[in-house]
């Protein structure tokens, strides 16, 4: 039985958490995430979940408490944004190295400085090398669905990694959206009971965790994390297929929109994909062959899926809502360009950095990108590889 409801992104995530009913949630308030754990703490207080809710004194402590709880064998979550994620940095690496399947939503927000509370992806992109799986969500529906699937992906024996579920701060976290929620029983059955193989509170089989690991084994353990990331690609797809059976909504590593016969494509994450799809519909009506590619997983990065999806296009624009300061554009641009390198078929790939600090991405901006791609296709020449969209210069 499916239910259509109107919820904000934060409410949708909290709703998913309620239905997942984790053992432990540890959190600290930070805009624009605060509401997620706020709503969730109400479920705790109203007895609607069995969770131990731990209000800690900083995000560093939140992720530390999550690592402690997950080590003890509990299904564990936290949530954060921006500076909070930056403060968790040290412990996120430890969570992934200890192979703890912690699920944590991140309402994406710019990093300081200058101080800014609005949406961009700087926070998530700061942790692309941390060994966590990163899922991105276009809207409240996807944030909700990703949360439920994240539990299965994280806890899969081939994976055992933390999963970060990203949703755009304010744009998705605070806007009211219509979505379908699953009934409690379906979610309960889908996520199942968490039975960790090894954990601290298994008194019959005492183990030690978080140990010193020098040049003798550190390297091998790191390689195992890579193997888990590689395995995660199939697991993300399998869990997506299984989720489709209970929800009717398909999920994979990427989503394509009108890309099959497209000459030009934009690649973007999260809510901006929705805007781009709208622009694609308008331009298609005018006869332009355009499409959208939206990576759902950013870590692991779906190199093969992206190169397969884009192999027929003539020009691609990658839109990044974060900077790398490499002076060669944003983080996704580097990865998408690398994915296309081995095709050797001269696809023109350009980059637009957009929307930093909450600057709005207007439909006209996306249209401008397609018009510039059109010029590139017609002229066969790329003037500028890295561009800034909607910036005053």
């Amino acid at each position, binding site marked *: 039985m499916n239910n259509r409801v109107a919820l904000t992104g934060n409410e949708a995530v909290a709703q998913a958490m309620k239905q997942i009913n984790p053992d432990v949630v540890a959190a*600290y*308030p*930070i*805009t624009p995430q*605060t509401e997620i754990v*706020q709503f969730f*703490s*109400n479920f705790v*207080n109203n007895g609607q979940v069995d969770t131990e809710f731990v*209000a800690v*004194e*900083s995000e560093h402590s939140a992720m530390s408490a999550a690592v402690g709880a997950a080590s003890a064998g509990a299904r564990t979550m936290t949530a954060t944004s921006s*500076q909070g994620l930056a*403060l968790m940095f040290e412990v996120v690496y430890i969570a992934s190295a200890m192979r703890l399947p912690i699920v944590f939503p991140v309402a994406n927000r710019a990093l*300081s400085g200058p*101080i800014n509370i609005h949406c961009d992806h700087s926070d998530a992109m700061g942790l692309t090398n941390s060994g966590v799986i990163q899922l991105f969500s276009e809207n409240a529906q996807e944030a909700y669905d990703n949360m439920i699937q994240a539990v299965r992906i994280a806890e899969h024996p081939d994976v055992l990694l933390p999963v970060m579920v990203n949703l755009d701060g304010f744009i998705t976290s605070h806007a009211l959206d219509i979505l379908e929620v699953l009934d409690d029983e379906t979610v309960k059955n889908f996520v199942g009971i968490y039975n960790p193989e090894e954990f601290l509170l298994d008194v019959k089989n005492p183990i030690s965790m978080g140990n010193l690991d020098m040049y003798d084994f550190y390297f091998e353990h790191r390689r195992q994390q890579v193997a888990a990331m590689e395995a995660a690609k199939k697991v993300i797809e399998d869990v997506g297929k299984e989720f489709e059976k209970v929800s009717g909504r398909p999920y994979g590593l990427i989503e394509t929109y009108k890309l099959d016969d497209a000459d030009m494509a934009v690649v973007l994450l999260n809510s901006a994909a929705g805007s781009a799809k709208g622009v694609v519909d308008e331009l298609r009506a005018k006869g332009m062959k355009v499409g959208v590619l939206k990576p759902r997983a950013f870590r692991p990065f779906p190199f093969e899926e992206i190169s397969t999806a884009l192999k027929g296009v003539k020009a691609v624009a990658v839109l990044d809502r974060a900077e790398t300061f490499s002076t060669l554009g944003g983080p996704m641009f580097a990865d998408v360009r690398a994915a296309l390198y081995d095709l050797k078929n001269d696809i023109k790939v350009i980059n637009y950095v957009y929307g930093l600090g909450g600057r709005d991405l207007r439909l006209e901006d996306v249209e401008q990108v397609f018009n510039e791609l059109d010029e590139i296709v017609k002229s066969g020449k790329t003037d500028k590889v890295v561009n800034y969209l909607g910036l005053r210069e």
Partner: protein
Amino acid sequence: MRKELEKYFRANRLPHIWCPGCGHGIITGALMRAIDNLKLDKKNICIVSGIGCSSRAPGYLDFYTLHTTHGRGLAFATGIKFAKPDLKVIVVTGDGDCTAIGGNHFIHACRRNIDITTIVFNNNIYGMTSGQYSPMTPKGAYATTAPYGNIDRNFDLCKLADAAGATYVARSTVYHVPQLIKLMEKAIDHKGFSMVEVADICPTYFGRKNKLGSPVKMMEVLRDSAISIKAAEKLSKEELVGKIITGEFHNEIAPEYTEEYEKTIEKAQGGC
């Protein structure tokens, strides 16, 4: 506001973001009056803050100001004081900022006795993120994260600062403004680490969650529950429940950190 105080404000940044009835404006005003009374040159003052409602204050103040990250005002300020020991460095912070996420920086600044003045806007709650309990929320009080009452015991920040080694420790309230200004003056004038805790009101979150009535009502509670250290000494522990003890708790002269540091440098470089 008195005309002569206008020079301390960035008028183009006003009005402020604080809610109607909030006490933060009173504390900020008191701080400016203390600075004015001391006749300090504003070019010799740096005001530093972390994150939260209180930490918005330096944005409105026309001094050298640094708005930093959550809980770290004192850590940044320590760097400033080391680089420019002649500057008067003042940190404005809230109860969540100072005692939760920044608690470690606070105790170590106290311990070192570094010459920084810290003004704690204690409204007993995280206001900016809509009313979560902080380490200064009284036990039993309500917050959005404590709908059945807070089970955590709250810090007595003056005792904490004293025990950690601060050499000037005082408390006042947003009702007792003349006393507050006086204590701030003494704190700023003090050589070493000084801390003034200000019992503040947050009608929007703490007041609403705890059904404390209007801001005026909350101010009256401050008026009626504040007692002096001397008066408090005569009361039993039971009688002190709910009272706010105000005044100067500690005032001693002890070696100041940046001066000790300079002495060490001299010594290492062959001085006596």
